[in-house]
């Protein structure tokens, strides 16, 4: 089965700093999702990457998919306290609704 490993597991940054979260897969990545979860809340969809080399941006968050490295990265520019939460990389399985999750990266942004 496919496994996803995220790094770092936790990150504390000062407001305004840039940061990167990585997600490495044990198998070839054919597509990957990034979600954000705040404690006690649902998962918020950030973006989906479907092709090797694909890069997407939304506001100050950019995600890239490196198919050859079986890796995806999430980069936040000029972090804000509102970016704090748990970031999860997720891949879909071949069955309906089956999801494989990374263990998550806890991001804390100090004002």
């Amino acid at each position, binding site marked *: 089965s496919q496994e996803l490993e995220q790094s770092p597991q936790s990150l504390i940054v000062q407001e305004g700093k840039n940061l990167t979260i990585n997600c490495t897969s044990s198998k070839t990545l*054919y*597509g990957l*999702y990034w*979600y954000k979860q705040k404690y*006690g*809340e*649902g*998962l*918020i*969809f950030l973006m*989906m990457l*479907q092709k090797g080399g694909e890069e997407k941006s939304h506001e100050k968050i950019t995600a890239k998919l490196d198919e050859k490295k079986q890796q995806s990265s999430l980069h936040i520019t000029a972090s804000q306290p509102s970016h704090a939460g748990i970031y*999860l990389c997720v891949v*879909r399985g*071949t*069955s*309906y*609704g*089956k*999801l*494989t*999750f990374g*263990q998550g990266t806890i991001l804390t942004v100090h004002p």
Partner: protein
Amino acid sequence: SQTIHQWPATLVQPVGSPLSLECTVEGTSNPNLYWYRQAAGRGLQLLFYSVGIGQISSEVPQNLSASRPQDRQFILSSKKLLLSDSGFYLCAWSVQGGMSGNTIYFGEGSWLTVV
């Protein structure tokens, strides 16, 4: 735009009592609907999925059940809760059709504590 809502947000129930969590989707028709459970420190476990009214597939044997009485309504139930049913439950939806490539959108979640 599409939205998904589930309720209640938090629930404290005694062992052996019944459960009903409700989820509705707006702004789309004939979605795939899902119920997931997130145990502490773990990823989401798929409990049920539905591709249409009255069509429910179960992924994990347990004392929970799901129903889809209407196209955009998905209900998670139990006749008698167990302590192990405690957790964070998430309803989700995706566009009908292919299994991969369609984004899954999640509700706000429901915290269930069985005491």
